[in-house]
């Protein structure tokens, strides 16, 4: 049984030291004009080469909030993302953080920018827990197909962030039309274990690191069902069946547990990801359509000692809302996708509402470069299906499905996903009820910086790819 994390911790400490020395050695040999480093020659010859140790930040975020001015929105209907609604509310942000949220009497300093929100609505920035932007960017040519390392059924060693193309024009559409301020980029579902996800701030950047959400935990993507067994079964290798899927998963987890318990094991990128999951540092995002398969995964997770954060594309979640509530697992779902593959055959419009009825966690996701622009609309469709069944789910709760609940399942709910004092000022001002088809984001702030303004054509990101092309800078 996996238990001993401390042994690996000690190894990590020892390696940190070696790595610092290696860097020093490098600078010495690289430029003889510079003074020699303080480290002794004997130390240098002992440990000449060493990578940054496992667990240390690598490919670290370089994102810094953009300059912002203290801003307040007054007189709007405010959904706080955690189920609260304030009529004629005030949202005040300064220093990149939410400073105050409240009713009309909430004090606002005299010398700041104030927007009249009368007739408008404010929500937290919308969050998509399931996106492939950057990994499957536009244009979707083969040369850009970087979302599935479909060469082995388990590839926990790959990281989605290494495929992200920051110039994907899809990011700006999600911002401008969808009010999306944070999103999780997942590897595809060809593999049982597809690799690590990355959570991004939806800000334009020259590098992935410039978008990387500071302090967000990694997740690992897993996939049930048809895709892995089809991809590998067609190549005459395991898995070719659902039982093969589970068997390969279990063997892989057992090997990871052995690795975790072996302080002398050589570094293994795949197993480092799996051990991160066993330690609870890396979350599991599990593509799984069918109810019976979700139940199997929950038992496998118990057997191996990890937790599933969310089932994605869980079109049959409504059949086991009780089980999902008991296991504290979110269901990341579409409002109306159904019937395009066998495991989606039982998709119904009431999926989200029936989960809500059971007290289970609902997240509306996109998995799509177009639907990510309309998560608010998808959430509304799911809400209305419930209403027809006599379930009156409040609008504020429905907004929670695409804000706080997504943040929770991504492990960033302490930073964003709701309008609470001290959190990141990720805010959308809508020109009308965000649950109406007739409304659009008017302004979007990320960490308090105005990153999109429908009223100002120049406050609209245009990716490198779009420059000099037909429709550059168009409303899109």
């Amino acid at each position, binding site marked *: 049984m996996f238990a001993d994390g401390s042994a690996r911790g000690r190894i990590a400490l020892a390696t940190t030291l070696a790595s610092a020395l290696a860097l020093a050695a490098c600078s010495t040999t690289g430029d003889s004009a510079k003074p020699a480093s303080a480290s002794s020659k004997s130390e240098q010859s002992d440990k000449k080469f060493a990578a940054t140790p496992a667990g240390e930040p690598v490919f670290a975020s370089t994102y810094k909030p953009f300059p912002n001015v203290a801003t307040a929105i007054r007189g709007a209907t405010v959904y706080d993302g955690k189920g609260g609604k304030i009529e004629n509310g005030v949202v005040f942000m300064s220093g990149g953080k939410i400073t105050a949220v409240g009713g009309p009497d909430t004090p606002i300093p005299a010398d700041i920018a104030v927007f009249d929100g009368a007739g408008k609505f404010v929500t937290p920035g919308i969050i998509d827990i399931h996106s492939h932007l950057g990994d499957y960017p536009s244009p979707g040519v083969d040369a850009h197909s970087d979302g599935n390392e479909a060469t082995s059924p388990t590839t926990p060693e790959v990281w989605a962030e290494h495929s992200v193309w920051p110039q994907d024009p899809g990011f700006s559409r999600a911002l401008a039309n969808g009010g999306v301020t944070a999103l999780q980029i997942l590897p595809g579902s060809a593999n049982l274990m597809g690799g690590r996800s990355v959570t991004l701030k939806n800000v334009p950047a020259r590098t992935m690191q410039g978008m990387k959400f500071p302090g967000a935990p990694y997740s690992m993507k897993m996939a049930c069902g048809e895709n892995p067994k089809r991809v590998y079964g067609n190549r005459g290798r395991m898995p070719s069946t659902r039982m093969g899927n589970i068997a390969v998963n279990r063997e892989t987890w057992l090997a990871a547990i052995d690795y975790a318990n072996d302080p002398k094991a050589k570094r293994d990128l795949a197993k480092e990801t799996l051990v991160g999951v066993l330690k609870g540092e890396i979350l599991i995002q599990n593509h799984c359509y069918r109810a019976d398969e979700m139940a199997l995964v929950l038992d496998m997770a118990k057997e191996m000692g990890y937790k599933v954060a969310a089932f994605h594309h869980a079109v049959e979640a409504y059949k086991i809302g009780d089980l999902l509530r008991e296991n504290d697992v979110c269901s990341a779902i579409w409002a109306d996708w159904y*019937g395009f593959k066998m495991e989606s055959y039982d998709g119904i*419009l009431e999926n989200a509402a029936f989960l809500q009825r059971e007290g289970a966690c609902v997240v509306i996701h996109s998995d*799509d470069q177009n639907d990510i622009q309309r998560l608010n609309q998808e959430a509304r*469709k799911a809400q209305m299906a419930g209403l027809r069944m006599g379930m009156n789910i409040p609008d504020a709760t429905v907004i929670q499905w695409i804000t706080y609940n997504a943040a929770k399942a991504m492990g960033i709910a302490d930073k964003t996903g709701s309008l609470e004092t001290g959190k990141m000022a990720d805010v959308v001002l809508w020109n009308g009820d965000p649950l109406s*088809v*007739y409304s659009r984001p008017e302004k979007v702030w990320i960490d308090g910086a105005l990153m999109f303004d429908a009223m100002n054509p120049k406050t609209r990101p245009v990716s490198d790819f779009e420059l000099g092309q037909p429709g550059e800078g168009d409303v899109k």
Partner: protein
Amino acid sequence: MKTLLTLAASALALSAPAVAQDVTITNARVVIGDGSEPISGGTVVVQGGRVVYAGPASGAPAGGTAVDAKGAWVTPGIFATVTTLGLADVSAVSETNDITASGTPFSAALDASTAINPTSQHILVHKAAGITRAATSLRPSGSIFGGQGAIIDLDGDANPVVQPRAFQMISLGEGGAAQAGGSRPAAHALLRAALREAQAIAGGKSGIPETTEIAKDDEVFLSRFDAEALVPVVTGKQKLYVDAERMADIRAVLALKNEYPKLDLVLVGATEGWLVAQDIAAAGVPVIANGLIDLPETFEQLGATQSNAGRLARAGVKVAINAATLQDPRRLQQVAGNLVALTKMPGATGMSWGQAFAAISSVPAEISGMGGKAGVLKPGALGDVVMWTDDPLELGSVPTQVWIGGVRQDLTNHQTRLRDRYKDLDESDRPKAYDW
């Protein structure tokens, strides 16, 4: 014996075609579907399966079953184009999928009307979403020619095909290039060779040798049978739907009229149509336009914008919203609603409510050759009427009642049955399998 007879009678009743009943719907927010704005307190009268009146309450003839709409929206049924309704049960399950056939030597001759399954769950689900008629099409898979699409109704009875072989579907641009062997010139050469064959068969041009087929190695691009199927296209008796996205590809399609003046062209997709809107308008070619595609998903869609449909319409082009690029055709209403939303966005071009609704009702019907017969509540039109829970372009608005050809429809389907079974998770007495 008596029991047996009763059973037989009831089985007959189930299978007998439903009969249209005369109905008068009053107190409705009536949408004619022709682009005009809704009429409050309106009346719709359907007799003998046809609309006889739709408009203000005064002036409506009496007769038939009275239905009080209690202020609800009443509209013509949605007319969906281009769809694959009735051609697949589960698109990713190949044995259920009749949309493509890459293994056949035939292309233009393929006829969708031979395969429509009226009880497909997609038809039943989409009827429950307010779609009453649709253009359903095969997708080019072994040649640039997809084959002949049909106009269908969604009433689920034994005769779903309203108009067989209503149009030929071809793909130009990147898709056509791939099908034709790898380039746009290859697609255009194949198209011209095929149309020349068809002309020769039609007798329009003497002296052109007729070939038996156009093929390379084992792959047949056009058989004699296919060339014969293109005769109605080249003589203008069958519409030619051309899937093209790039501005230059659209221009090339419009130019076909110079060589083949009788072609009855319809553009499908036309993502960059707004860049050549004046040319399209001048040519009088209608467009089944992508509504919300706003990303350069391919190099032929670099100019993609949600304002495409609105800008085309503003230039005078007849524009319907394309269902083919949606997750499902039942999202047409949502797309139309989004086009209305654009009217509030600086720099964007959207549509008025009436115009947007027409783009999913009367306009696609007109493009499909059913102008005045479907997608509109005008005297003489088919009695396709939908009563809604809310503004039909608003999210989550669904039909409460649907009539097709004057016949009140049952809206039950696989999804509603699952919904009813799982309205709770109570299995204390018996498993869910006994709950039906």
